[in-house]
Structure formats: structure tokens, C-alpha cells
């Protein structure tokens, strides 16, 4: 890319664009903490049909699939909340189902180590973050705190109502119960029959299944992070964090 020269006004606008994208990543992250993960699609994603969301097992490709994923997070939260409310009637019967949505569970997806590039033409942006998370989840063995080490890579697009997420890839090295390392497995969890219905709940499968990344194991080949973004002018000049990545 030929080095661009920008006026002070242009530089200031580009800085504001950068801050706007960082704020979106921050709000995306905070959404889990305040139990509003099912609202992430409506709030932060572009409504284009070429959106896609990738995890280790593949892509949710297209608006319907992406929305479906976040809707399912909401359903999972509802089920967990109902089971917890039923389990602790003394403490929780006084509260409605809505008030209890998200009781006892919490997702922390803090993101840092940001590298962010705004396109020279100001129409798109790309960012890469590290996520060192922990999520308190309800499982069929009761409450389990999971450790997460993952990368969050986002292509943003500027639309009339502001910056939006266009493509997102959240690939994990580690997602395991805390306290056992990430190559080991817990051996002392006991099944809790009151939470057995959770075993029947399944998140929707990616509609474009493919292995984007292996979870860590001691025989895993060395796996670098997703590529940090490089300066670019137009999106056609750079790689995508979306489904067409080669």
C-alpha cells in the first residue's frame, strides 16, 4: 500500500473511527457480563447478509445463522435460569422469570492487546484482540467456572448508523474448567440430577462446518494467532477475518 497522507481533519476522523471500533469491541465484551448476549446481533452486527461468525468448529454464515447463534445463547440462559430458580426456591421464588434471567451465571470475555487498522478510505476497519476470559456456567454437574484463552478478530464496516461488526472470528486455544490446567481434566465433578435437562440443550451447529483452530493439546502443531491487521486502503487489498480467508 502506498503510504497515505492525511490532513489533520482526516486524521482526527480516523482516530474517532478507531475509538468507535474499540468501543464496539468493549461493549461486545461487556454484553456477556450484563447478561445481554442475546442482544449482541441486534446491537452491534451489520444487517448485511454476508456477515459471518466463526469459532473453532466452523462458521455461522449469513445473517440468519449469526442471529440464530445469539438467540440460542439467550435460550440457553433462560433454561439455566429456570433450573437454578427451581433449585433454590427459598432464595429466588420471590423474583420473576425475567428478573432471574442470568441468575448465578456470568460470562467474562475481557479483550486486550488490541491491534486495529482503519482503512485508508474510512469504510472498513480490522481489529485483533486477545481474550482471557472466565465463564461461570451451569452444567449437569452444577456450577463450573471455565477458563478461556482465545483470539477475537473482527472486520468492521461503516454504515449510516455507525460502525458495525461485519465478520468475527473468535477462535480458542483453551476452554476448560479452571483449576485443572488445560491439558488435564477434572475427575471430581458429580452429576446433579436437577440440572440434567441441560444435557438435552444443544447450540445450533455452524452451517459451514470446518476446523478453524484446534483446542490446545500436547500434540497440537504450533498454532500462531490470527494475523494482526496491516495498514490498507481498500478492503479488497487486505485479507478478511471472515469465511473467505485462505
Amino acid at each position: 500500500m502506498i503510504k497515505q497522507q492525511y490532513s489533520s481533519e482526516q486524521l482526527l476522523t480516523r482516530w474517532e473511527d478507531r475509538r468507535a471500533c474499540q468501543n464496539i469491541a468493549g461493549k461486545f465484551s461487556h454484553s456477556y457480563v450484563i447478561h445481554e448476549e442475546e442482544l449482541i446481533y441486534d446491537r452491534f452486527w451489520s444487517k448485511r447478509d454476508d456477515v459471518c461468525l466463526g469459532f473453532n468448529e466452523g462458521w455461522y454464515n449469513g445473517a440468519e445463522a449469526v442471529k440464530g447463534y445469539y438467540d440460542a445463547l439467550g435460550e440457553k440462559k433462560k433454561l439455566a435460569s429456570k433450573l437454578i430458580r427451581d433449585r433454590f426456591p427459598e432464595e429466588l421464588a420471590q423474583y420473576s422469570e425475567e428478573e432471574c434471567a442470568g441468575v448465578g451465571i456470568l460470562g467474562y470475555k475481557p479483550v486486550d492487546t488490541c491491534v486495529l487498522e482503519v482503512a485508508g478510505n474510512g469504510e472498513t476497519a480490522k481489529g485483533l484482540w486477545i481474550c482471557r476470559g472466565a465463564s461461570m456456567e451451569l452444567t449437569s454437574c452444577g456450577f463450573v467456572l471455565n477458563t478461556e484463552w482465545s483470539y477475537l478478530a473482527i472486520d468492521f464496516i461503516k454504515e449510516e448508523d455507525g460502525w458495525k461488526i461485519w465478520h468475527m472470528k473468535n477462535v480458542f486455544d483453551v476452554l476448560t474448567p479452571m483449576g485443572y490446567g488445560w491439558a488435564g481434566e477434572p475427575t471430581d465433578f458429580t452429576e446433579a440430577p436437577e440440572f440434567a435437562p441441560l444435557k438435552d440443550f444443544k447450540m445450533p451447529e455452524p452451517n459451514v462446518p470446518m476446523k478453524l483452530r484446534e483446542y490446545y493439546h500436547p500434540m497440537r502443531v504450533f498454532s500462531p494467532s490470527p494475523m494482526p491487521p496491516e495498514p490498507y486502503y481498500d478492503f479488497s487489498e487486505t485479507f478478511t477475518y471472515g469465511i473467505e480467508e485462505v
Partner: protein
Amino acid sequence: MLTFEQRLHNALGSQEIENIKARHALWHGMGYSKEEWDTIWYKGGDTTWGHFFGRMVGWEEVWSGSVIDSDEDQYKRFTPKCREDMSFSHFNLRSTGSCGCHNLASPVIEVAEDGKSARACYLTPGQLCQGGEFTLHSGCTFFYERYGSDFVYDEKTDRWLYFHEQVCPDMMGSCNDGNYGQTLWEAAQQGVFFRGGGMAPNNITEKGPLHHDLCPVQLPQNTAKWPEPYRTLDNDNTYSPNHNDPSK
């Protein structure tokens, strides 16, 4: 529509807030309470600091709870250390061996349209690690917290200063002594719930609790929601309701 100068002022302010937050976190992690509160805070009647236990209001109360009480704690912990090993006494007792990593992540920062205040929300995936002779050890503590912070711009000194802080602790436990979720679950099955801990300062104007640690029956909390673009600091845009007047 803001002018170029106003936008530039707000952009520089937003950037400076990141530096202030970092200084605060670093000084706090090393037990440097006097520096943490003396250098970067607005010393007014509406300055507040909130935690799970409530909110300290006014500069003197914040100073008393955050510096004097904290220093007393630090010295009580580290003076015996010096008696065990005199080499510690050649360094500042408050920071020796102390490494509280209040890592700042997921920033959401907004500067008011009027350029007189700013608001920021962060998450921390924190770690308490102990410096020692041998750096390899088993036994460290994780903690996850949220921070909501308000700042004001002091025109006289051309500086941004901390005005309000709301700390929302969610989880704190051992990385190695079993699974924290299972620890809470086992206790909950006995009807025992941990809602929030630690020492409350001696003087608090607004008694809490303002926030609870996560436990199996803890309802969702939005104690420090992210800031949205806003015009000026007021009760709809603050982390400390009814304390928004820097002139006090």
C-alpha cells in the same frame, strides 16, 4: 456539531483517560495509595469512590478510606516481612512483594459533548501474584471485576482528573484449589452463599451493598454499565448519582 478544536480536545481527553486509568491500576496494585489518590484525583465534595460495601463521598472521606486505612493494612502486612528478612526494609514497604495485576481490558470510553467530563468502563481479568525468591509457584488468585469511572476536565491546569469510581467485584478465587464454580456450588447446596467480602473502610457516607460477588443465587447486576455518547455529566450519565458537581 462540534468544532475541530472541540473534537481534538475530546480525543486527547479520551486518550489521557487511558493513561490515568493505567496509573491508577498500577499504583493500586503496588499499594501506593497516597500517590494513587493525591496525583490524579479531583479533590472536591462530590468526589466519590464506590465498592461493594457502599460509597465514600467527598475528598476527605475517600482519602481516609483509601489511603489511611489502606496504608495501615499494608504496613501491618509488610513490617513482619522485614523482621524476617531485613533486605525488604531497604525498599518501599508498600510495594515490596506486592503485585496486584488489575489488568485493564475491554475499554469503553466516551467524552461529553461539552468537553468537561468523560466516562469509562473497563473489565479486569486480574491476577494476584506474589513476587518471591523463586518465581515458579503454585497458588495464585484470579479476580474478575468491572470498573465504572467518571472524570472531569480542570481548565485551570489543563488536566483530566478522576472524579468517581465504582468498583464491581464479581469473582475472586484460587487458580489451583479446585474449580471456583464447584466451590460455590458445594457451599450453596448447604445453604451457604458468599455475596461479597473484604474490609469496608471505617467511614462511608452511602452504605451499600452496591454490588455483590457472583454466587449461585445472584441476580444479574448492571452496576456499572458502559457509557453512551452524552452531552454532560448528570444523573442519567454518571457512576455516582447526585454527586455530579465538580464545583463543590
